[in-house]
């Protein structure tokens, strides 16, 4: 469990050290990509806890979601519709769902282990 956390910290440090900054116009895309990545990560955690985790689905979902979200936002900019809101909505709802499921799973596990002891 510690390896992903360590990787997250390494990623943060790398990002801060590299001092890469993107133009303001593209922050929307990046924020959506971040949201997609978070969604994939929590989805992966949920699947892992429910026992139906698949590596291929997880990895492909991660990149595909990011690209889809960014593409949607790009399309929205060109069509004059704030399509990135759709991505934000979809990912936000899924994020909450995933976290809720994870919470329930953790609680049930915890109460089970308390009953056993």
């Amino acid at each position: 469990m510690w390896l992903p956390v360590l990787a997250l910290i390494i990623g943060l440090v790398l990002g801060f050290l590299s001092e890469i900054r993107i133009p303001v116009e593209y922050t929307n895309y990046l924020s959506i990509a971040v949201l997609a990545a978070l969604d994939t990560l929590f989805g992966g955690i949920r699947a892992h806890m429910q026992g139906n985790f698949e590596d291929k689905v997880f990895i492909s979902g991660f990149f595909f979601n990011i690209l889809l979200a960014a593409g949607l936002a790009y399309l929205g900019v060109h069509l004059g519709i704030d399509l990135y809101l759709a991505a934000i909505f979809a990912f936000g709802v899924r994020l909450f769902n995933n976290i809720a499921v994870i919470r329930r799973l953790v609680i049930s596990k915890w109460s089970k282990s308390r009953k056993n002891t």
Partner: protein
Amino acid sequence: MNNKRKTGFAGVACVLGVMLAIQFQTTNNPVTRDTRDMWELRADLEKEKQRQQDLNNEIKKYQALLDDYEQSRKKEKTEAMEKALHDLKEAAGLTEVSGQGILITVEPFNEGEAPKLYPELIRRLINELNRYEAKDISVDGQRIISTTPIREVNGETYINNQPLGSFPIEIKVIADDAQKLQNKIIASQSAEDFVRENLYIDSKPQNQLTLPAYDKPIRVKYMKQAKEEL
């Protein structure tokens, strides 16, 4: 959790971390794009040049002020030191002094064998003169300072290691109040002593007297240079 799954999670987490960091940095201090056109740039350049010139002028001004301060301080210091040195030299009798005072002439009282001017007589006279607030004294062209020796060598009187000349001997005294000093000299004990030794002293007030400087080295026997405090 198997290894493959772990590395998958780790990779996703790492990418997420990088993206988060970039997003943070971008939103906290965004890249501002320069959208000025050529004319605006030129105007801005002109403005900056003006500012640079102003700043340079200011620097120059303050530098000059600083130089001024430093110079005046140095000058003041040396001036003060020179003045102090001059004052000290004056007090020590190393400079020529002039001012109002009295001219005392010592001559034999009676014709005949020339009397001797003993060192004790001169010493007494000088002590008396000093008591009467004489400022500077010279005897026969020898300036009297605090260490001036007046003594008898082989029957001759020496002042500053120079033998006294022949009569009349002139004693020049500078004082603030020449008249008062003269009156006191006339009625002094020294005058009587001189008469007893067959000598006559005559004193005349003078508006302008010039005393020579003490020209021999001053030997300091009992003083040591103070150690400079660091």
